[in-house]
């Protein structure tokens, strides 16, 4: 029974990381209507930038470094959209081209990270953590902070979407871009803001992934990508809450199953979930109408 609770604990942490990543991807996918295949590399870049601040050149506290990296990655997201993805998306009617470009961006980013940091494993400088008993589970301070960040971000995103004008515009665009445009919504501005959020969330997700895994490698984000896809698709394109629900489900499923099968394959469980979702309910659990 303890093993199960331990797994549940891990599951909560994985779910938190996954949820942060999934929100970022879902926001951007919902607004731009194409997938960013370099998202995993955005995560990795964010993680390494944090490393740069926390354990390479400077020795800034991990959580502060995380915040700085998040802002930097937000700016990076805006830059990539302005210079690369936006122009391609506007020029070609078929989404094929921009998808290939994001795929190419992934290759470029991965190798740039390799160029600067090599393929070695890196570590963050983390404050000493103590283990806490939370009910029957055992969680460290850092793990609790990660979960806290996830909850805070979810609350912030929820508040933004539901109450602010920005949020309403985003929801409108996600539902029907052309209608939103004719309703006077400044779609370019919303898109820019969305890319900022997506980049920032990716940066945070990559960093907390490195914290929870205990190490950093350049390809970690890429290899995690399909798990994020599974969460987003399971939840339904365009639905943030669905993405979070998917993240929780998959986070739990992978960690709990790891207690019973070879843990090396735990992430592959996510792939099974992805396939099953696409076969049974391709619109996901909470898809918005009109998003097929």
């Amino acid at each position, binding site marked *: 029974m303890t093993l199960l609770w331990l797994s549940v604990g891990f599951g909560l942490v994985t779910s938190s990381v996954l949820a942060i990543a999934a929100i970022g991807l879902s926001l951007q996918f919902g607004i731009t209507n194409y997938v960013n295949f370099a998202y995993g590399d955005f995560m990795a870049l964010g993680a390494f930038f944090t490393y740069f601040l926390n354990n390479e050149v400077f020795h800034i506290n991990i959580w502060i470094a995380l915040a700085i990296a998040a802002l930097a990655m937000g700016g990076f997201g805006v830059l990539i959209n302005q210079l690369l993805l936006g122009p391609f998306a506007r*020029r070609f009617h078929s989404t094929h081209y921009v998808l290939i470009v994001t795929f190419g961006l992934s290759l470029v980013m991965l190798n740039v990270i390799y160029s600067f940091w090599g393929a070695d494993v890196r570590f963050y400088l983390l404050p000493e953590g103590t283990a806490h008993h939370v009910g029957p589970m055992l969680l460290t301070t850092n793990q609790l902070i990660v979960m806290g960040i996830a909850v805070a971000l979810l609350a912030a995103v929820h508040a933004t979407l539901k109450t602010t004008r920005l949020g309403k515009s985003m929801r409108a665009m996600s539902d029907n871009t052309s209608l939103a445009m004719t309703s006077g919504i400044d779609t370019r501005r919303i898109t820019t803001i969305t890319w900022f959020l997506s980049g920032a969330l990716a940066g945070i997700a990559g960093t907390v992934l490195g914290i929870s895994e205990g190490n950093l490698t350049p390809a970690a984000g890429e290899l995690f990508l*399909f798990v994020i896809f599974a969460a987003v698709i399971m939840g339904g394109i365009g639905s943030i809450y669905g993405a979070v629900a998917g993240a929780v489900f998959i986070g739990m499923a992978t960690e709990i199953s790891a207690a019973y099968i070879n843990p090396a394959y735990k992430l592959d469980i996510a792939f099974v979930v992805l396939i099953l979702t696409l076969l049974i309910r391709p619109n996901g659990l909470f898809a918005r109408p009109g998003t097929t």
Partner: protein
Amino acid sequence: MTYYIFTLVFFLFDYFILAMGLNIQYGITGLLNFAYIGFVAIGAYVTGVASLPANVAGQHYILGLGLPFPLNTLMGGLAAMALAVLVALITLRRLRTDYLAIVLISLSLVLYDFCNNYVSLFNGADGLYNVPAPFAKTLGLGVNGFIIFFACLTGVVALIMWFVMHRILRAPLGRSLRAIRDDHVASAALGKDTFRMQLKSMMIGSFFAGIGGGLLIQFGGSFNPTAWLPGETFVVFAVLIVGGAGNNIGMFVGALLVETLLVHLPAFLPEIPGHPGLIEYIDLALVGIVLMLMLWFRPQGIVPERLRRTASFGAPERPDEDAGRLDQTAAIAAAVGAEADHDPGSGR
């Protein structure tokens, strides 16, 4: 020096084969197969375990059939094709383009993960090695002699496969696939079973991928996961797009420029001290940038798709004037092939 050139020649022919395979899937049919390298890998691995004798010490793997060339390579091709059928059956029926791309790239990552971890399959992270070099013993070839020989053999295989692909693309099948690429709703409305044709396209393309992979493992004698991170699919896309998606000559040009020049040439440059692997990283990043530039400035590639002219169908040309005088009814009736079982009283 000669061996270096022949190594480049091998990769030229091999990637020509790989590009032809991706071309029928993406260039002709419009399927974004982001998992292409996974099929190449399956072809390589299966060829490997088909060639290795059973139970070589130090390696764990399935099968071990000790088959000679070309049987082992054909097995690799068929294995890749079988995987394509499985994937297509699950994904093609109901997925829109980006979902398909997501599933395929996920498949690629999962396959990679699986082969890396499941040691008894293809020897895990170490991969397969000491794969017998075909004909090396019988011809008494040393390492370098083999390079020259195998590069030429690959060239022959590439030629045969080019001939087959040429036939397919020129035939109605090729045309139907392009129709599906352009508008699958209209194609279905004209009687094309779009699912079955996309399946055929995946199968043929994956067969080519498997053969290419099989040749790869026999050339180098080994194959392991570092050779095929999912990003490698992108290199094949680069070959396609730089050369010119949709036509075979473009594939060859693309293979020449991207694979041979861009990817492999720098591998022979001296290492920068203190930075192992840096040249390779910069090189791959460059491939990505070249592709994006190409997509922006010349999306049709260096050798654009050329459409077939009427004369090539063998039908006699008609006097080049508009109808008007032509008896429309008779012409349409003849063209429609109207049957004689209509009630003559029905409103003529």
